[in-house]
């Protein structure tokens, strides 16, 4: 089941105390979100997850970002989406709101990028439309020759109004929307949503469904880690790795299609269970996939490790300090490559991971190479998890029929491990509908670190750093 949590309604003093604890490093910010007239703060401490709610009838709340920088972008988003004013917010610029939500005839004001002063500095604007098939985002580099002095990202180009779409949506529709927040993490998002709903209603999905969800989640992780690995190497013009990894990734996706009827396994995880069962043919395909990957991944690891020209590019590039990672509470390969041993599968040990053996690989270097190695180790761990999941797969039903689901008002949350890192989901249900639902992608705390990682590197190394972070645009812009 999902992580249990504490829920407290606080006043301004209690809110400030939470900021103190985060600033001191005693607790980690999980998310900050709002609804009309109220802001919520989720923090992780030694005892687990705590949600603090601060009613703000006047439309103001004390800024957390003033004390704890990781909250700044979340507060800017809260201000844009709900009109609540974070008092003392150090960065008052809009974030998701690009000035195009009102009258379309009125041209949007120019976005004031942070000023950079110095002689012989020049700016390079990149995006939001890029040459490759990737999501849109704008990057403003200020360079001294080839050396990056400052990078500032501007996001929000794929804002879809997820919060609004989910408000008042019937459960079935909300499940579909949740699976589409960020297409590459569709299993993780659906899983997070389902777990939050199940926690709210106190449901226990059938055991077989819980195990099948883990199978899907690990397949998703395998596919994306393989894809990322190749893509990172390709950004150093080592296309051989992309070709090999591309073949393996495709095999994973095809196996997923064979087993669950969809390459990305979209809409397969639903509240109350899963919407697809694994048959004997699917089981055989999975066994074949695991055997194939077990045979073909090690030579690629050797190729990666033995190619000196590639190592020359990845080692020492785009370093993020462990202190910064700890401050931002960055999850996934970004955090684990810089000493933060956090994995939601281990931290909240939701089923079935509580009964499975796996390691959380942690490295200290914090560079591109470390982020590649964390992925490589996680590929091995995912294979090992699949090898444990398949033989132990319980028999039985895979879904609680939708008509048997409760309808009452309830709240729940979930913290699940997507391939990018921990995904936080909070949901409030009422009369079989979603009243308010909040997703916090791992990228919220990884994007700011990318800006720190590139500092002092050369501008030509940015694509390599960026790919090694592989942050989500869609999951972040909501």
């Amino acid at each position, binding site marked *: 089941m999902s992580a249990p949590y504490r829920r407290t309604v606080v006043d301004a003093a209690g809110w400030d105390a939470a900021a103190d604890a985060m600033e001191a490093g005693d607790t980690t910010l999980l998310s900050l979100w709002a609804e009309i007239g109220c802001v919520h703060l989720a923090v992780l401490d030694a005892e687990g997850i705590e949600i603090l709610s601060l009613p703000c009838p006047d439309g103001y709340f004390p800024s957390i970002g003033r004390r704890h920088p990781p909250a700044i972008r979340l507060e800017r988003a809260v201000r844009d989406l709900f009109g609540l004013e974070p008092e003392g917010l150090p960065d008052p610029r809009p974030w998701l709101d690009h000035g195009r939500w009102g009258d379309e005839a009125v041209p949007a004001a120019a976005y004031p990028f942070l000023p950079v002063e110095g002689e012989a500095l*020049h*700016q*390079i*604007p*990149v995006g939001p439309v*890029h*040459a*490759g098939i990737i999501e849109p985002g704008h990057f403003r580099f200020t360079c001294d*020759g*080839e050396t990056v002095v400052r990078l500032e990202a501007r996001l929000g180009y794929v804002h879809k109004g997820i919060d609004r779409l989910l408000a008042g949506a019937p459960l079935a529709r909300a499940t579909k929307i949740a699976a589409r927040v960020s297409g590459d993490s569709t299993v993780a998002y659906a899983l997070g949503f389902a777990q939050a709903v199940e926690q709210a209603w106190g449901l226990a999905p059938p055991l077989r469904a819980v195990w099948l969800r883990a199978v899907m989640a690990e397949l998703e992780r395998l596919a994306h880690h393989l894809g990322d690995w190749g893509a990172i*190497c390709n*950004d*150093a*013009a*080592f*296309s*051989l790795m*992309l*070709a090999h990894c591309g*073949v393996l990734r495709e095999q994973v996706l095809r196996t997923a299609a064979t087993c669950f009827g969809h390459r990305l396994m979209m809409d397969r995880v639903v509240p109350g269970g899963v919407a697809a069962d694994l048959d004997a043919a699917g089981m055989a395909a999975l066994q074949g996939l695991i055997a194939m990957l077990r045979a073909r991944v090690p030579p690629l690891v050797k190729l990666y490790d033995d*190619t000196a*020209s*590639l190592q*020359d*590019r990845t080692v020492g590039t785009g370093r993020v300090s462990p202190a910064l990672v700890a401050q931002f509470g960055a999850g996934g390969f970004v955090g684990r490559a810089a000493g933060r041993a956090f994995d939601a599968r281990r931290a909240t040990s939701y089923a079935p991971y509580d009964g499975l053996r796996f390691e959380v690989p942690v490295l200290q270097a914090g560079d591109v190479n470390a982020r590649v190695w964390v992925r490589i180790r996680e590929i091995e761990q995912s294979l090992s998890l699949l090898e444990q999941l398949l033989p132990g797969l319980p028999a039985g039903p895979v879904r609680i029929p939708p008509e048997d689901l409760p309808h009452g008002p309830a709240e729940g949350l979930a913290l699940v491990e997507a391939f990018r890192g921990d995904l936080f989901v909070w949901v409030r249900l009422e009369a079989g509908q979603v009243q308010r639902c909040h997703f916090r992608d791992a990228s919220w705390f990884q994007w700011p670190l990318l800006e720190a990682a590139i500092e002092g590197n*050369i*501008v*030509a*190394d*940015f*694509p390599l750093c960026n790919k090694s972070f592989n942050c989500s645009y869609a999951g972040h812009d909501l």
Partner: protein
Amino acid sequence: MIPALLVQFAQMMLVLALAPLLTGVVRKVKARLQRRRGASVLQPYRDLRRLLGKDVVLAENASWLFRVAPYAIFAATWVAAALVPTFATGLIFSWTGDLIVITALLGGARFALALAGMDVGTSFGGLGASREVMIASLAEPAMLMLVFCVAIVAGSTQLSSIAAHMLTQPVGLRVSLALALVALCIVAVAENGRVPVDNPATHLELTMVHEAMVLEYSGRHLAMIELAAALKLLLFASLIGCLFFPFGLAHAGTDPAGYLLAIGLWLVKLLVLAALLGTLELSIAKMRVFRVPNFLGAAFMFGLLGVLLLFVSRGM
């Protein structure tokens, strides 16, 4: 006189016609090595036809330089290619310029491209131009050094004379020439913007060198630049062939059958070099921009060592 001119004309047309094919073959080799099917080797021709059929989109602030540069680059590169003994030595044009002229023509083309890259004032053009000039400032001395090395052996900077010398005199295995070959290969990789110096296949603007300068070009202008780039690759491949593997080169004034045989052998050499280049590009990653000076510095040192060894062995 007339037959000599005709042969020269045929050589010029042949290099022009075959240049895109060489690029296509390199791409095909790379694709096959990546276990991809890859585009047809004729794809560069189709690209050129497509580009020639398209309108030119010009930036509003583009000056005359931006419009003239593609033709200047193409012309300079084509003339340089005409001076190289591709399949026959002693062709009539080859007496008008030597290896230093070829270097200068290519340098001029690059100068025009760098200016054009900066002309429109986009950040990528400037970025590419500054990188290109950095690479050029290191590649050209290395090129000159290896020219001197070869010239000392053959007693001339004239390519036809050098090739004829290598072909007819018992040069034997010389350390200096081996060093010059390595240097020329490094310079060729850098000059043509291949991995590990530049990646011709990338879409990442921030990492580009050559491609960054031509980002703003379109239509027939882009066609000219692409063709010039293909010609340059052919030129360097032919240069390596005629300087270090001159077997099979015909002499001016031989019979048509002799020419045909020489052309066939030249094509084989090009194919081998294309396969080698494709393999090289796949087996290494691109180096950091600031590692390129070390790489080209090595080429310069090889050239210098070659020259020094020659002086030592001949007692000045």
